[in-house]
Each structure stands twice: as C-alpha cells, then as structure tokens.
C-alpha cells in the first residue's frame, strides 16, 4: 500500500500530486485528509512540526496546549463529542499525558482518536531514549509504526478509521528519522466525514470503579476483535524472496534492513506491532530456520515473538542503545566492514551553546556569584550548565527545577538554593511545584527566565506570549499575578540584560525569609530583531584581564593574546560591557 511508483505517476501527468514531505508534514497532511477537526500538542523535538503543519489548515481547530496532559484531555473531549482528534508529542511528553491516555483505552472513543509519539533514539535533543512502543502495549492501544512519509500519512488515516471501527484510541509511533526525513507522498482529497452524534453514556465515559470493571473486560474484547482483523491487515506483509536471511522488522529499521540486505533476504514487514499479527508471524516462521528480528531500540518485537514460543535472533546482534543503521546490519550479518578513507581527525567541535546575546547568560553569571546551588530545567537554559558558566546542579524533566530545589532545601536549609525555569516550562508543569513550596512552608528562590517564547524547539507561542498557534491575538497570562496568586509575596520583575539590577534583586531575594520569585524578562534574541547593533573592543583600553570571557559568549574571541568581538555574531546585548572594568568595549557605530 505504501510503495509509490513515482516515475509512473509523474509520467502519467497532472492528475496525481506527489510531494516530498517529512514524516511530520505527512502526518499533518494525513490529519487533514482524514477529516481531523481538533489537534493539540505541546512542542517537543522531534514532534514539533506536526502541529505547526496542521495549524496551516483552516478547518482544523489547532492549539499549543500548556502541556501534553491537557492536550490529550482537550482532544478526548472533542473525540467524545463526535469529531476525529489527534495529539502529538515527543516521547517524554507521553509520560506527562499517560494518565488520561491509560483510561481512554478503557472508555474507547466516539470520533477517532490518534496519539502520535515521536521517539528520539540516539537522543539528538532529548534526556532519554525511552521506547514508547511499550506504552502502547501497557495502555492496550493498537500500535502503528510507519517506515516512511507515505506510510506515516496512510497510517494516520487508517489509524483513525480503526479507532472508530474497534472503539479504541490508536498509538502512532515514529522516530527522529521518520519525523525529519523526507520522502515522496501521494496527496489525496480530504474525506467527507460526517460528525458522529454525541449521546450521554456514563457507563462508557465515566470511569468510576463500577463502570471501569466492565470496561476492563470490553477492552479485552475490543482488542480480540482487532486481533482477528489483523490477519488481513495490508500493512503487515511478506516481501522479497532472498534465501540467506529471514527478517522480521518494523519502522525505520525496515528501511535499514532492506538497504543492507537487499535481495539476499525475505522480510516480514510489520506496520502493526501491537497486537502482533500472530498468524502471519507463525506462518513466516514455519518457512525459515533462523529468524532475525531487526528493530531499533528495545527488544519490543523480539520479546513478544519469543513469548509466542517462536525462537528468534535479535539483540545479541543489534544494539538496544542508540540508533541503528544499515552499516551495523551489514557488519553483523554480512561481515562487511565500513570502508572509510580518512579517520580520527582531532577537530574543534561546534557544540550547542547559548546564542550571542542570549538573555539567560547574564542571569547565570550573577547566580554563580550569589547562589550556593542552582537547579535548572528543560530548555535552552540547560546549556548554562556547560563551561565556562557551569551554572546548574540538576535537570531531569519538564518542570523539575522547582520541586528539586525545594527537596534540596529540606535537607540543606542553610544553603542558598535557586531554581531556574523558562516561561513555557513554568506554565507546562512548574506552577504546581511552586504551589507545593508555598503550601508546605518552604523557602526557595525561583528565577523565571521569561524570554516570551518556547525557545529550544524553535519559537512556539505559549500561554504567556499573547498569541495562538495560528498567530491570533489572545489573552496573555500575567506571570507575576499568577505567582502572587500562589501565595508568593516577594516578587520582582527585572531586565535580564541589566546586570546591576540582576545582582541587587537576586541578593535581595536570597535575603528574604520566605520564598521569593524573580521574573527576568527579555525576549529571545533570535526573535528580537530590534537590536541591529554590535560592540567592539577598544584595544588601547583593553588590559587583557579576560573578564569578558567568563560569560562564554560565542561572539567574544581570544586569539594571539588579544580579545576581539565578531561583529557578525554580536547581537548587541551589552552584557559584556558591564563586565569590563577598563571601559574597553563600546558600541560599534561603524556597523549597522
């Protein structure tokens, strides 16, 4: 179903539109073609572009939700009310959304419900590489794994149909290489789908124990019906006729296996990986002596197939850690070593750093001087823990900095402990921890790094920016009023670029007997284009004390015993001028 014979399509001429789409763009297109009416997400790499592309369609009510749990609950409401709904999140977002998702499998749906989980093997931009296929099995949700953009689109449409047909939410699991790789996709017209009628049905939609016990049983019945259907599901298919290897595979690993083994293998390509198509697997196994399971990440297929009593070879050959690739398969199964001409250059790296002019830089510089311990959170500011700033002790997950700081303060009451968190992350899941600190008579200092955007994922709006995902103006959460409503009485709003003010305010906050909050405001330098200026070194004044290097600004260099500022990189924040004791940094008026 998913193979596009592109050449033929193009030769046929105008009536078929074939576009090169990323997996994320294809999922958005699938939502449109399937008649999805409500779509919700919190941004998170590698999932972010799904909602950004869905929001382009006028007919889909789209939102950036404050967090993934809220996204699921809003989409659930829409699904119960009779429309098709989709939520998208990165793998760790499913942890946040797990509560409503587990019970949604019990209630089932009215309109179709699809949850897209974008996993990040290799942790390109994540804190762990949890394999969320286990979630689908744990939640008892049907699991689809596309292996290219065409399948990503097809599986969104199919998943929503199956969701309605079997009265179950459906889990679509992609990985970074599916999300961010482009391949050719045939576009179709959107379905003309009638909204389903909502009828009050507390036995189905209210999961109080007496109802849930019955739903628990019907859940198994619904899954059993699905298992029977799976025997005819076209997305699970045997391919090829090679005699050297018999391979069971899914997702991106299918592409790597085909690439590595080509015509030498026979493949059982699985699009549905929970529940597993037992009949197809047993039939395939009966034809071959040795079965190889090639999958990226954890032995999810392997464990289930072994549990069926079918012997397979898997993780003893292929690593469970990091990304898989076709070269690894060639090495393990064909003994082909990679042939590279040049190896081991010791080259200067280009690691991710806080941007020149980043408003977080000055805050961390001052915090290092006034605080004993700093807890940090998920966002650009996690980069503050790198040299030369080295600011931050702990970072675990979205919103963790405040609870972590409170916990530390319980054990080290005489220490000055400061939590740092961004505006979007604070609203995502930091606010509840702040309530905890106040309610339980704690004392910490909280710095909200308010750059008026969700920075790390590429500048998405959030409830404090005043705009929706469709750039419509909306009400803006007042962070100070919110913090005060939580019971914090000591609150300051300051400019993140004014180091004197930052220093005085943080010292005052630390001196308080109670919990204090400092809101350090300054828009992300990448969206604030107003500062069309840069700074330069006055070499006659410079004593080469190198104080300006302490902030680790990428625009400030030190070469051959001389400090210089790269005027192209400099964004004109002027934080460095406040560190210089010799007035050796001035605005470069020759550059505009």
């Amino acid at each position: 179903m998913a193979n596009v014979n592109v050449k033929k399509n193009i030769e046929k001429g105008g009536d078929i539109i074939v576009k090169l789409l990323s997996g994320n763009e294809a999922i958005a297109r699938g939502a449109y073609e399937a008649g999805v009416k409500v779509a919700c997400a919190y941004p998170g790499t590698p999932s972010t572009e799904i909602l950004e592309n869905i929001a382009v369609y006028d007919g889909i009510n789209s939102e950036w939700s404050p967090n993934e749990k809220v996204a699921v609950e809003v989409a659930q409401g829409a699904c119960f009310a009779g429309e098709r709904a989709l939520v998208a999140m990165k793998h760790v977002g499913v942890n946040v959304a797990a509560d409503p998702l587990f019970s949604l499998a019990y209630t089932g749906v009215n309109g179709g419900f699809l949850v897209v989980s974008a996993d990040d093997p290799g942790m390109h931009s994540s804190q762990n590489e949890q394999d969320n296929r286990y979630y689908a099995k744990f939640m008892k949700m049907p699991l689809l794994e596309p292996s290219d953009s065409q399948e990503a689109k097809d599986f969104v449409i199919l998943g929503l149909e199956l969701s309605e047909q079997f009265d179950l939410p459906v889990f679509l699991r992609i990985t970074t290489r599916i999300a961010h790789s482009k391949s050719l996709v045939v576009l179709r017209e959107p379905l003309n789908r009638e909204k389903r009628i909502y009828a009050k049905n507390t036995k189905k939609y209210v999961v109080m124990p007496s109802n849930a016990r019955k739903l628990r049983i019907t859940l198994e019945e619904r899954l059993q019906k699905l298992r029977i259907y799976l025997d005819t599901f076209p997305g699970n298919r045997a391919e090829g006729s090679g005699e050297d290897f018999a391979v069971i595979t899914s997702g991106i690993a299918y592409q790597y296996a085909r690439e590595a083994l080509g015509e030498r293998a026979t493949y059982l390509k699985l699009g549905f990986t929970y529940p597993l198509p037992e009949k197809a697997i047993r039939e395939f196994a009966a034809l071959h002596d040795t079965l190889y399971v090639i999958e990226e990440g954890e032995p999810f297929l392997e464990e289930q197939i072994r549990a069926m009593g079918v012997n397979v070879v898997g993780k003893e050959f292929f690593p469970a850690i990091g990304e898989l690739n076709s070269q690894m398969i060639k090495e393990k199964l064909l003994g082909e070593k990679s042939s590279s001409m040049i190896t081991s250059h010791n080259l200067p790296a280009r690691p991710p750093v806080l941007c020149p002019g980043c408003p977080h830089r000055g805050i961390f510089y001052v915090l290092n001087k006034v605080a004993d311990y700093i807890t940090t959170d998920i966002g650009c500011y996690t980069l503050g823990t790198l040299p030369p700033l080295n600011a931050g002790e702990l970072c675990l997950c979205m919103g963790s900095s405040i609870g972590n700081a409170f916990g530390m303060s319980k054990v080290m009451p005489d220490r000055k402990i400061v939590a740092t968190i961004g505006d979007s992350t604070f609203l995502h899941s930091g606010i509840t921890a702040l309530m905890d600190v106040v309610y339980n008579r704690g004392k910490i200092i909280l710095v909200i790094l308010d750059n008026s955007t969700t920075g790390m994922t590429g500048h998405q709006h959030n409830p404090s920016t005043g705009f929706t995902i469709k750039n419509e103006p909306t009400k803006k959460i007042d962070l100070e009023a919110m913090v005060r409503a939580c019971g914090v009485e000591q609150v300051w709003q300051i400019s993140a670029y004014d180091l004197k003010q930052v220093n005085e305010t943080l010292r005052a906050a630390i001196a308080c007997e109670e919990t204090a909050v400092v809101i350090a405001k300054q828009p992300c330098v990448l969206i604030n284009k107003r500062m069309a200026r840069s700074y330069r070194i006055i070499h006659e004044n410079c004593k080469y004390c190198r104080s300006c290097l302490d902030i680790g600004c990428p625009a400030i260099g030190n070469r051959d015993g001389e400090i210089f500022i790269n005027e192209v990189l400099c964004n004109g924040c002027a934080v460095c001028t406040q560190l210089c004791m010799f007035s050796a940094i001035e605005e470069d008026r020759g550059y505009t």
Partner: protein
Amino acid sequence: MNKAANILIVGVGGQGTVLASRIISQAAQLSGYDVKQSEVHGMAQRGGSVVSYVRFADKIFSPMVEIGQADMIIAFEKLEALRWSDYLQSKGIMIVNEQEIPPVSGMTGTVSYPGDILKTLSSYCQTITVNAIGMAIKLGEPRTVNSILLGTALKKLGFERSIGEKAVIKSVPGRTVEVNLRALSLGWDLI
C-alpha cells in the same frame, strides 16, 4: 538508475544547507527518481555543525548515508568538509566552499582552526574548491553562495541544466529567482 546517488550537504547552522538539499531533492524528483532527504533539526542554536543527506535512484530505502558511502559531499565551510570527509567513498567528489567560520572553541583560543584543510582534502579525494562567497559578492548578492555551489554540484551529478534551473525556481523566494539562476549558472560553468 539502480545504484543510489548518495550526497551529504554539510556546513554551519544558518548557512542554508537545508535549502540546498531541498533543491537537489527537487532536481532528482523532477528527473523522475525516488528520493529521500534527511536532516536533524531541533535545537534553535545557531553555529552548530549541520548535515543533511540526499539519496536518489529508482527506489530508495534508507534515508541515511553511511560512513564511506557518499558519492559527493557539498561543504559550505572548510572545517565541516574535513569533519565529514570520512563519509566519502574512495572515488567520491568533495565540493568545498573556501569559507572559514571559526568555531567557538577556536574563538576562545582553546583549539586552533586547522590549517591546510584544502591540501589535506586534495590528498585524500577529488576536491573541487569554489570561492563561492567571492563570486556571490561579485554578483551583488552574498546569499547566492548556495546556488553557486549547487550549480557545480548538480552539473557534476549529471543533471540537465534545465532541471537544475527548474529546481531553483521551485525552491527559492520569487523575487530572488533571477539572481539565483545567474548564480547557478556561474557555478555550472565553473567546471
């Protein structure tokens, strides 16, 4: 074409490597090939080492190019050319823009920018150096570096000139089409 063409486009964040890969993919699609393109995005930071992969043939499976498999690397920056050079196969072609962008670690004096990169590359592989930034400035639009390098690359890959032009027209903003076509043609006629 049964055997896939494997291309890496490398550079520094913000240089326009993603647009370049899109134009190559477009040219491949216009020529009737199956095509896959891959890159990792996420961190909004600028100035990191970036890579995208383009593969095309009658049928493509993996979207990734492995070490020692690339037929061509298009490097927007010299240090990045060297960093990714082990992806090139023995008969592969390196097209390198002569531009130098010092990394932060080099700026702060802890590591120095390696000298003689072009010499090192030439001793390993067929290397075509292009002074794209100089040519682009002469053309009056520094942002056409992209199209100049692509002109050289698309010709070397065996695309028809009209296909290269169509791919550029479909991919760049309308008001910049003309200058980008001139840039493409400069790169095309370089070899």
